[in-house]
């Protein structure tokens, strides 16, 4: 498995909580897309012959792309990389962009999976988040997508948002689970530094999120998604059987991925690198013929820690036998020893050579993961 990620760094409007790289100025759009085409050509040797099983348009707002723009990018992807016939091609979309004509164009371009940023079905939340769409659009776009032939649809929801009561959250989840979707991503709100949300909380315009309520919302979600046949397969991701995001799964299974566009990250199995998080610096770099990026080769303890970190995100858990064969029995025994107290307390499950979080453990995944990390040499 291998995946290509294309970052479309533009949005019409900035969501208050978002700290991803994007620009609301569409000025450089043409140049950025042109340079992304160049990057696709220049880095065609990245996978060294390994077939690409997923293509992912993320952002930003990829649903800002016109049919022509998307078509050009797809054409270059197909031309320069060995794309499997059944490859998963996902595009992140805002509900307000998904009118029937646009959906038809996406389908024609080869997009076969939609990831729709719904966030909430309540207009007061959408307004507070500064989302561009309405609650009605969130619902209508999903049926329109079905009409356009999309059978693999994911939606995003957010919990822990200030003012989102337990009842409101239950309503959101119930509505989502009733929709013809195959996949659900639910993110607990993280108040990131340098976002409008942080400023608004500091200024008292938005109340401080209540993490006790968020924890309750998460637990309720895990349970009701399970009973509705869309169980969790990763900390924030749920799917019907066979519909796990192939692209995102490659991040958690240490598969290689190529990131195209400003701020996009790549991993070739050994080193991680990331393009500059500035549209103009990205463009300037490629105009002069080089890739403005940073590279980092993880040390062995760091690779072990990344393996633990990503493995534990998945419901099937950390594969201890692979850990042992890749990093040796001492590392394996160390992890298992440190896991001991969490296995005893019921936060982790040790089963068939795998270590996985229980529902209880999930709530404190970060600190438990840190405890399992290898000790620095």
């Amino acid at each position, binding site marked *: 498995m291998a995946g290509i*990620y294309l970052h479309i760094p533009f949005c019409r409007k900035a969501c208050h909580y978002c700290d991803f790289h994007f620009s609301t100025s569409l000025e450089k759009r043409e140049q950025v897309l042109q340079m992304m085409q160049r990057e696709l050509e220049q880095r065609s040797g990245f996978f060294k012959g390994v077939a690409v099983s997923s293509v992912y348009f993320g952002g930003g707002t990829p649903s800002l792309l016109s049919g022509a723009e998307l078509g050009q990018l797809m054409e270059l992807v197909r031309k320069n990389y060995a794309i499997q016939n059944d490859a998963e091609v996902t595009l992140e979309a805002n509900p307000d962009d998904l009118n029937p004509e646009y959906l038809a164009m996406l389908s024609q371009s080869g997009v076969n999976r939609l990831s729709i940023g719904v966030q909430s079905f309540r207009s007061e939340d959408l307004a507070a988040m500064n989302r561009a769409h309405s609650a009605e659009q969130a619902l209508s776009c999903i049926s329109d997508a079905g009409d356009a032939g999309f059978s693999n649809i994911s939606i995003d929801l957010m919990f822990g948002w200030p003012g989102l009561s337990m009842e409101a959250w239950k309503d959101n989840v119930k509505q989502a689970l009733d929709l013809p979707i195959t996949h659900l991503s639910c993110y*607990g709100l993280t108040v990131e530094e340098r976002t409008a949300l942080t400023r608004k909380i500091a200024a008292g315009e938005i109340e401080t999120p209540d993490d006790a309520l968020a924890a309750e919302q998460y637990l309720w979600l895990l349970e009701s998604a399970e009973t509705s046949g869309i169980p969790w397969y990763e900390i924030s991701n749920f799917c019907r059987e066979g519909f796990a995001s192939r692209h995102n799964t490659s991040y958690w299974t240490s598969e290689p991925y190529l990131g195209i566009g400003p701020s996009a990250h790549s991993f070739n199995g050994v080193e991680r690198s990331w393009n500059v998080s500035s549209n103009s610096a990205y463009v300037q770099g490629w105009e002069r013929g080089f890739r403005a990026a940073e590279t980092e080769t993880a040390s062995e303890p760091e690779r072990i820690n990344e393996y633990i970190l*990503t493995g534990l995100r998945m419901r099937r858990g950390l594969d201890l036998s692979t850990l042992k064969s890749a990093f040796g029995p001492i590392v394996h025994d160390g992890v298992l020893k440190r896991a001991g107290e969490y296995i005893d307390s019921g936060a982790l499950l040790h089963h068939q050579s795998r270590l996985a979080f229980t529902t209880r453990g999930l709530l404190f995944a970060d600190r438990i993961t840190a405890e399992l990390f290898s000790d620095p040499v």
Partner: protein
Amino acid sequence: MEHIRNFCIIAHIDHGKSTLADRLLEYTNTVSKRDLQAQVLDDMDLERERGITIKSHAIQMDYELDGKRYVLNLIDTPGHVDFSYEVSRSIAACEGALLIVDAAQGIQAQTISNLYLALENDLEIIPILNKIDLPSAEPELVKDQIVDLLGCKREDIIPASGKTGMGVFDILRAIIDRIPHPQGDAEAPLKALIFDSVFNSFRGIIAYYKVLEGEIRKGDHVKFVATGADYHADEIGILRLDKSPRDVVKTGDVGYIISGIKNAREVKVGDTITQVGRPCLNAVAGFEDVKPMVFAGIYPVDTDEYEELRTSIEKLQLNDASLVFEPESSAALGFGFRCGFLGMLHMEIIQERLEREFDMTVITTVPNVSYFAYLTNGESFVVNNPSDFPDPSKLDRIEEPYIKATIITKAEFVGSVMGLCIGKRGEIVNQSYLTTDRVELIFNMPLAEIVFDFYDKLKSISKGYASFDYHQIGYRASDLVRLDIRLNSEPVDALSALIHRDHAYTFGKKICEKLKELITRQQFEIVIQAAIGAKIIARETVKALRKDVTAKCYGGDISRKRKLLEKQKEGKKRMRQVGSVEIPQQAFLAVLKLD
């Protein structure tokens, strides 16, 4: 003897002492420019980072002027009030001093107190106006200050720039022309003043001295008067950039002695070296045993490292005789050591050296000064630890050390400086204008108030334009109470502080707030209380952490997240579990950072 000049440099921190010293070494070809690390005289890493000279050193330069060859001994002095005794001994070894004043910043309190020390020792003062090339320099104004202070002539002041090298030759000439050569009876029995010592892991303690009378020869059987111990002078010599062995060091000159001494406590700054066979009649006057001013507990974060910590502190003491310690135990922290320091900077340096040089992770408890407790039954004892504070019902009175504090600041900050000092229980003794814009304020204050956050606050309210110096002036009875901190009802003795009753409520409230900020949320609620005896005077709550899980972890998040969690794991190693609560290392010093 006529060709020797012994001098030191008096300067405020940042006024360019080290840079100018480097220039002197360079212009006398003592070091080549290429070898000149930024500040040659400060050779500990820690010193270079902090930009201050912690331990004084000496260096000899050769210089030829008007056809005559001279030997110039530069004796470097520490630049912080914590080390004022060492400064006084260095000054006592000199005949002259360069007074370096920053042309932009003017004269500072510490400069003045060291200058007075130099004048008391009859040193010839050569005033130097440094950093004359700075755009913000106000040479005429600062010259006025210097003339006022020294009663010298304006033309005696040498304009200089350590950065460009301007004035350095004038300074060298002035050292030779103006500073008198040392005097002393060359035929008399040996009498040498120890003004510093350093630890060398191969050679043991190296003592630096100035020969006041007689001479010292290699192989001499010598005695250190104050300690009474005698040694063989295995190696003697003079101090170039490195040690330069000699057979004899004569009257007036500055040198070193190596005699196989392993413990710094055997070499006391201010002590006298003489010969066993032909001792001098009187020792050098002014010897004092340095007493610690500030006490704090040092505990290993990991209780298993107690013995290792003991070994490390013992090793540190080998080259820092001013550090004293004794074992103590704390209900909260287990076994550790109560250590005595010269001051807060000294305490920070010790903590840092333990971490850097010995790889120890330690907790330093709330520092306090030394109190005298008098009981109603007539008993009295020293209190160096809040847990030794007697039961109030048995206490007749408690006395705390007072200091005389000298602060020099700009006129516009007088109001806020006064406010700060009075808030710290200071009483104004005197206020005088040094110039129209510079005011000297003198306060009597409890030493304990200086120990906490005084110096940082002084700097911040005066935007850096205040300098500060102090001397202890004895003890006074005070209404002190012990403020205890409880976490989930468990008293944490390491967080207790002795404090004036009038300040207890405000202090208790602030410390609870600060601890709330520093203690990370755990999976249960943590109640922080401040109490005097059984009475709770302040309370804060750290809410339970209900979830700790990252929502998104995709391609770009993995290495960032990994680093974050690695840091978190590392941070946890620096926490100490007290009862069920994990307390970060820095929380134990939270009292020092109250606003």
